C-alpha cells in the first residue's frame, strides 16, 4: 500500500532521488506495481491532454474589469489601494495585466507621479542629491538613469533648484528634479517618451499636476502650488535654456 501511495509521488516527480531509486527497484520486480504506475501515468496524461487547456470565456475578463471599475467608482482609491493595485499588477503579471486592472487607465502615470511626490514629502529628505547647482545635479543622474534630465536654473524667476532624486514609475527608474517656490516643493519627473502630447492639467488628491512633452521627453510637474503658479513654473522651465 505504501508503494501504491508513493507511485503517485513518483509519477509526479515529487519523490526524492533515494526513494525514487528504491521505488524503481520495487517496480522492476513487481508487475502489479508497474501496471499501477502505467495507469497513473496514463490518467495523468489523459487529464492534461483533455482538460488542462480549457480557456476561460473571453467575456469573463470583461465582467471582472467592469466589476473592479464599479468598486473603483464607489470609493475613490486610497494611496494604499494604489500601491495595492501596483502589487497586484506585479504579481498577477505583465504590463498588459496592469492595463487591465488599473483603476483609471489614462491617469496611471500621473497618479504614480503624485504618489512619488507624496512619499518624498514624507521622507526626511525629499531629494537624493541636494544642490541648487545644476552642474552638480545633472551629473549626479549620470549612471543612475539611462538619460540624465535637462536641468535649468530658474532662481531668477522664483523657482530655485533644491536637488534631484530617482523615482520609480511603472517599475522604471526615472529622474526627478525638485524645485522650490516659497515654501512649496515641486517634483518634476522626466520620462523619455516617443509620443508628444498636448500639455494636460489635472488635480489628484488635492495636488496639481501638469504634464507636457519636449524633445522626446514627457515631463510631469506636481506640487501643492496653485494651478496658476504651477503653470508659470512649467512655462519658465520650457522657456529656459540650459545655458542661460
Amino acid at each position, binding site marked *: 500500500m505504501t508503494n501504491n501511495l508513493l507511485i503517485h509521488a513518483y509519477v509526479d516527480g515529487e519523490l526524492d532521488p533515494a526513494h525514487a531509486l528504491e521505488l524503481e527497484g520495487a517496480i522492476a520486480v513487481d508487475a502489479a506495481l508497474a501496471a499501477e504506475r502505467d*495507469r497513473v501515468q496514463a490518467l495523468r496524461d489523459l487529464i492534461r491532454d483533455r482538460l488542462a487547456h480549457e480557456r476561460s470565456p473571453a467575456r*469573463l475578463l470583461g465582467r471582472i474589469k467592469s466589476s473592479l471599475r464599479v468598486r473603483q467608482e464607489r470609493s475613490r482609491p486610497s494611496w494604499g489601494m494604489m500601491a495595492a493595485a501596483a502589487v497586484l499588477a506585479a504579481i498577477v503579471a505583465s504590463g498588459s495585466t496592469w492595463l487591465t486592472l488599473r483603476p483609471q487607465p489614462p491617469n496611471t502615470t500621473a497618479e504614480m507621479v503624485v504618489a512619488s511626490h507624496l512619499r518624498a514629502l514624507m521622507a526626511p529628505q525629499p531629494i537624493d542629491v541636494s544642490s541648487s547647482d545644476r552642474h552638480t545635479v545633472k551629473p549626479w543622474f549620470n549612471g543612475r538613469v539611462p538619460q540624465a534630465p535637462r536641468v535649468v536654473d530658474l532662481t531668477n524667476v522664483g523657482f530655485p533648484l533644491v536637488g534631484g532624486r530617482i523615482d520609480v514609475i511603472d517599475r522604471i527608474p526615472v529622474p526627478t528634479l525638485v524645485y522650490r517656490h516659497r515654501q512649496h516643493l515641486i517634483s518634476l519627473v522626466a520620462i523619455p517618451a516617443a509620443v508628444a502630447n498636448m500639455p494636460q492639467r489635472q488635480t489628484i488628491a488635492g495636488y496639481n499636476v501638469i504634464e507636457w512633452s519636449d524633445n522626446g521627453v514627457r515631463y510631469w510637474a506636481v506640487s501643492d502650488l496653485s494651478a496658476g503658479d504651477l503653470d508659470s513654473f512649467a512655462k519658465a522651465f520650457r522657456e529656459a535654456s540650459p545655458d542661460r
Partner: protein
Amino acid sequence: MLPHLDDCYRLARWLTGERADAEDVVQEACVDAFRGIAGFAGGNARAWVLTIVRHAAYRWLRKNRPAALVSVADLDALADVQPGQTPETALIAKADAARLERAIAALPVPFRETLVLRDVNGLDYRDIAGVTGVPIGTVMSRLARARSRVIAALGVDEP
C-alpha cells in the same frame, strides 16, 4: 492578459461543476483578490490566487450545493477501490473526455480539488497543501484515492 485567469476558471469550473457558475466564482474571487492584495506576502502568486478562488468556490458551494461538502470523517469512511476493478492502461489512454469528466465530477470535493490542482492546474504537492490547508501527506493520500477512483470509473462498463 491575466496569466492566471484560465487557471482560476479551471479550478472554479471543477469545484462548482458548472461553467456558468465558475464565472461568477472567479469574478467574485478577483474582487476578493483586489481587496486582499495587501495581504499577499510574496511567494507563489498562482497558488495565492487559486486559494482565493477556492474560498470563493466553497462559499458558493455552501450556499448552492451544501450536500457536496462532505466532512473529513465521511471522507475517511469512504471505501477505497477494490483491486480487480482496475482497467488496462490502454483503456484509460483512450477514454473519451465526457467519460473522464463524469468520473472526476463524481469525486468528493476534497479529492476532486486535489486532483484538479495537481493534474489540471499543475501545482506541486507543497502548493496544493498550501492552497487546501492540509499537510502534504494528506495531499498525497487524497490524490492517490482520487486517481484510483477515476481509474476504476473509467474501467466500469457504461450502459
